[in-house]
C-alpha cells in the first residue's frame, strides 16, 4: 500500500462538458487507478468518462507566488465584458 502511487481523478459528468477534478485515489498502476476511480467517484451515476493522471505529473503554481501571479488581475475590471451594452437580440450571455 505504501508503494502505491497517488493519482488525480477527473470525471466528465455528461457528454459535451469538461472533465472536472473530483479527488484522488491510490493504485499500483493506471489500470487499477481507473478501476478504483470508477468505484469511488462514479457509484452514484456521476460520470460518463474518467481521466486519471499520476499526481506527480502535475505541475502546480507555488503558493508563495500567489500574490505575483494572481493579485494583478484583481484591479483590471475592464477585462470583464461588463462595459458593453448587449443588444436585446443576443439574449442570455
Amino acid at each position, binding site marked *: *500500500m505504501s508503494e502505491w502511487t497517488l493519482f488525480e481523478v477527473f470525471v466528465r459528468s455528461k457528454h459535451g462538458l469538461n472533465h472536472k477534478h473530483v479527488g484522488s*485515489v491510490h493504485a499500483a498502476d493506471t*489500470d*487499477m487507478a481507473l*478501476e*478504483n476511480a470508477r*468505484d*469511488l467517484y462514479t*457509484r452514484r451515476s456521476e460520470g460518463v468518462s474518467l481521466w486519471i493522471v499520476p499526481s506527480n505529473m502535475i505541475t502546480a503554481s507555488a503558493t508563495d507566488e500567489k500574490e505575483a501571479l494572481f493579485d494583478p488581475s484583481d484591479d483590471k475590471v475592464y477585462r470583464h465584458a461588463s462595459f458593453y451594452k448587449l443588444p436585446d437580440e443576443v439574449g442570455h450571455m
Partner: protein
Amino acid sequence: MNQYDDLSEYLLRLGDSAVVQGQRLCEWCGRAPALEEEMALMNVGLDLFGQARNWLEFTAERLDDGRSADQLAFCRDERAYRNLLLVEQPNGDFAVTMLKQFFYDAWHYHVLTALKASSDKRVATIAAKALKEVTYHLRRSSDWVQRLGDGTEESHDRMVKALDVVWRFTVELMAGDEVENRLAAAGVIAAPELIAEQWLATVSQVLEQATLTVPPAAPSFYLSGREGMHTECLGVLLAEMQSLQRAYPDAVW
C-alpha cells in the same frame, strides 16, 4: 402459481449464490487492504445483493407460498440453500478471496451471457441487467489474479496456495445436473457443458497470464451445494447473516 419446478429451483441457485458471495464480501468491510479496495469490494457485494433480490423476488412470485424474497433469504436454513460450495468458503487471505471471486465471476459471466437469450423473458431481462455489473466484476477479479500471480514472490506463493484450497470447489462449475439439463433442453438456460467449456477457457487464459498452472479438472466432491449438502462454513455464515431476523422476526426500521 405455486410452481416448485425446475425453474424455481434454478432461480434459487442463482439467487443464493449471489447472497452468499455478497455476504462473504461484507466480511471485508473495515478490513480491506486499502480504502479504495474496500469500496470496490463493497460495491461488488451490493451489486450481488441487488441481483439476488431480483432472482428471489421472481422465485417468490413463482412459488406463491406466502414467502417474500426477504423471507427466502433470511428464513431458510442451510439445507434449503442452493448456492455453490465455492462461494460459501471462508475468505482466507486476499489471494483466496480474489481467486474465489474470479472463479465465481467467470462462471457468472458466462451463465448470464447465455441467460440473456433465455426463452423466459423475465429471466432474460434480469440477466441482461446483471451482466453489465458482472462484466466489471470479472474484469476486476481477473486483474487481481494476474497481479497477485505475476507479482512478488510472496503474492505468487499465496496464489498457488489459494489455488490448492479453492480448486476442488470448482467441480460444481464444470458439471450440471438433471434440473439444469432439462432447463437447457427447454432453451431456458445454456447447456452446462457449454458453460463449463467457456469457464475453463476464461480461467485458463487468466491463470496463464498470472503465471499459475491450471490444475487438472477437480474430481467429484461428496457434497453438493445445489442439493443443499453444504460444507460446514455455510451454517456459520447464515447464522450471522440471519441473526437479526431470527431474534426479531419481521423487524422493521
